[in-house]
């Protein structure tokens, strides 16, 4: 993996290189170079399989982190390319020409985070929810509990019981609580 | 015999056939359930289903042909009954011979297809794509079943030199060795195999099996229409069993004999259905075009020369 990272860093500016395991490494690349790097990895280094694409909302830094996880079937190792994009104006270069499965990942991210991938096919179609016109629901500033209370007629009087404690009270009401049980409850 | 007396006998006979059809259906489902180790439905279930279907409050319609579909199917069942001698009593004018006449075998072959065509028209007007698919499959399989059946019927007609079912039954009286089963074994074998498709039990029930993606022609039917179709189904099952009984198994001389024989004939298809899983439509069509068709052709050729 070391050689690969050296090769990559000679071409692109790498940040936050993390050697997670012997066969897994993460590296962050700037938004402009990321797709180029992914293409290079696919075409010249044998990372032909896209394991997944994911998105993380770093609301404190005002950034979204996209991850392209690639797999090399010959060497049996993986590399994750991280890209940070601006949270206010989330736009990323589309990678739909590299793998067809990227279409679906980008559609999902567009729906759940509102990230725009210009040129990606079927981007505006529904993915999991239909007729959604609120803030994209996977953003951390969207309060799902508040939205559910506002929209779905909550019944109220929800009570939560710790199962172990509840059953103990119900089955053995007279037995004193042991120290171990008290510790377990905590 | 007086025409009014005959009419009364016919109506009584139809009621017996209808109720026997319901009971036989329930019994067969019960047998299937016992095979799987379940209790199964109660014996009264078909009657309850009928009453429930009739008591449905909102029934929608798609047009006139949609109405006529189940009516055609029931007409097919009643037509089979009207022109079929049920119980052999020694005279062609006996009480249970209904309105059978010389050449009724041809009419009955026609009525066999009648119900299917009615359903095709009704389901077509229903407009559901699954209904259209179901009816296409049903007609394809029906054509494949009809071919060996018709050949076997022809062979029996040539053998006895008549198209009258009554005369065919009459010729088979006088002992088990006079049955077509033994005098014309190829036609009998073709009928026994093609019968599985005609009665529409398990290996060949893709058309109307409720747990397929399409229930077939009945997709859009509800309420009273469905009640009609259930009655038609019960009648048709008994009448087809009676037809094969008359042609191959020597007819019946009493209602008890009819009930036992039709039960055994219907049970044969259930027995096969319990053992074999469901065929796809292309599999069942090719199956009917192989052995049963060959047997039918052989049966005709033997009696031609």
């Amino acid at each position, binding site marked *: 993996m070391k050689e690969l990272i050296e090769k990559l860093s000679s071409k692109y500016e790498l940040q936050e290189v993390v050697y997670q395991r012997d066969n897994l490494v993460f590296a962050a690349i700037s938004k402009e170079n990321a797709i180029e790097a992914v293409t290079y990895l696919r075409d010249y280094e044998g990372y032909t399989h896209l394991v997944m694409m994911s998105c993380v909302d770093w609301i404190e830094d005002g950034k979204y982190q996209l991850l392209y996880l690639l797999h090399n079937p010959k060497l049996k190792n993986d590399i994750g390319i991280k890209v940070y994009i601006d949270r206010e104006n989330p736009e990323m270069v589309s990678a739909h020409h590299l793998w067809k499965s990227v279409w679906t990942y980008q559609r999902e991210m567009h729906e759940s985070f509102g990230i725009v991938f210009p040129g990606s096919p079927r981007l505006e179609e529904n993915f*999991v*929810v*239909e*007729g*959604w*016109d*609120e803030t994209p*629901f996977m953003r951390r500033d*969207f309060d*799902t*509990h508040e*939205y*559910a*209370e506002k*929209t*779905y*007629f*909550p*019944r109220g009087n*929800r009570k939560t019981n710790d199962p172990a404690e509840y059953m103990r009270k119900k089955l053995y009401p007279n037995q004193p609580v042991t120290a171990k049980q008290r510790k377990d409850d905590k | 015999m007086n025409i009014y007396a005959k009419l009364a006998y016919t109506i009584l006979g139809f009621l017996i056939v209808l109720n026997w059809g319901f009971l036989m259906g329930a019994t067969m489902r019960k047998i299937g*359930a016992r095979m*799987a*180790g*379940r*209790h*199964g*439905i*109660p014996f*009264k*279930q078909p009657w*309850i*289903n009928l*009453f*429930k279907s009739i*008591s*449905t*409050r*909102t*029934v*929608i319609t798609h047009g006139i042909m949609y109405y006529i579909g189940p009516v055609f199917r029931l007409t097919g069942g009643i037509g089979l009954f009207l022109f079929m001698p049920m119980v052999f009593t020694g005279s062609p004018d006996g009480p249970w011979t209904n309105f059978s006449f010389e050449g009724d075998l041809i009419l009955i072959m026609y009525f066999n297809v009648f119900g299917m065509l009615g359903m095709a028209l009704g389901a077509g007007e229903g407009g559901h794509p699954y209904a259209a698919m179901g009816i296409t499959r049903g007609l394809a399989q029906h054509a494949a079943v009809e071919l060996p059946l018709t050949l076997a019927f022809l062979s029996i007609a040539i053998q006895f030199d008549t198209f009258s079912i009554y005369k065919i039954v009459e010729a088979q009286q006088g002992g088990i060795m006079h049955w077509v089963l033994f005098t014309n074994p190829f036609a009998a074998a073709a009928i026994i195999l093609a019968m599985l498709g005609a009665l529409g039990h398990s290996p060949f029930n893709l058309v109307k099996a*409720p*747990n*397929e*993606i*399409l*229930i077939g022609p*009945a*997709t*859009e*039917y*509800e*309420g009273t229409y*469905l009640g009609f179709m259930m009655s038609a189904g019960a009648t048709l099952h008994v009448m087809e069993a009676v037809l094969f009984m008359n042609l191959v198994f020597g007819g019946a001389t009493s209602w008890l004999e009819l009930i036992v024989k039709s039960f055994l004939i219907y049970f044969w298809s259930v027995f096969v259905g319990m053992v074999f899983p469901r065929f796809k439509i292309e599999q069942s069509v090719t199956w009917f075009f192989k052995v049963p068709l060959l047997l039918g052709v052989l049966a005709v050729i033997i009696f031609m020369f």
Partner: protein
Amino acid sequence: MSELDLNNKTSEMLANSEANVKNSKKNFTRPEDEKREVVAPDGSIIEVNPLYDYFSNEKPKEEKPRGGVVEKFLNWARAESIWVLGFGTGCGSIEIPPLVTPRFDMFRYGVQMRPTPRQSNAFIISGYLSVKTLKRVIRTYEQMPSPKYILALGSCTINGGMYYDSYSTINRLDKYIPVDVYIAGCMPRPEALLHGFVKLKQLIKEGKAEKANEYARNFDEYKANQKKIIKDWNMPDYNW
């Protein structure tokens, strides 16, 4: 209620639904479903509104039970022959297949599965219900012939269960369609489901399972609730 009032109410409802679509931030109607004007071959101009022209928009009517001995007998027949629609909406639908196995065997109670809504009169809402599924559930429910019964399986249909704070899962089913029997639990065992069937039979025999009429009576209320959360309402208001 007179004919005229009903007509007024219907047109009001249509106006409301159109306003609803406008209130929404996005427009979800497909272009081919939009209201438009077409020129006929003879030159006259026809107004076309596909969502309302191609389907029945008649409101459901309340059908009074006949009463007396006849109704009692029919109720008995309905109770002894419950046909369940094979439509699993959530994780609870995994509890339905065991019912046909020898261990539970629902056939002995007269309960059977049917594949089409036209032939079934009971509907098991099995577990959590997302808005997307609710849309299909409403369409299916409205296609079932009356009298029809709803069994709500699992705590998700009662108060949202463990999905009470989800952005896409409804909390209370009875705000959208009337429910006859609730079966509590997460998940209820098949025995509980069988008990639900027995309870439903009891209700039908007593003549208390008339929720289809309740749906017809409070139709506007139910429709308003449904339209509040189904924002891409691209189907007719009522269709049998």
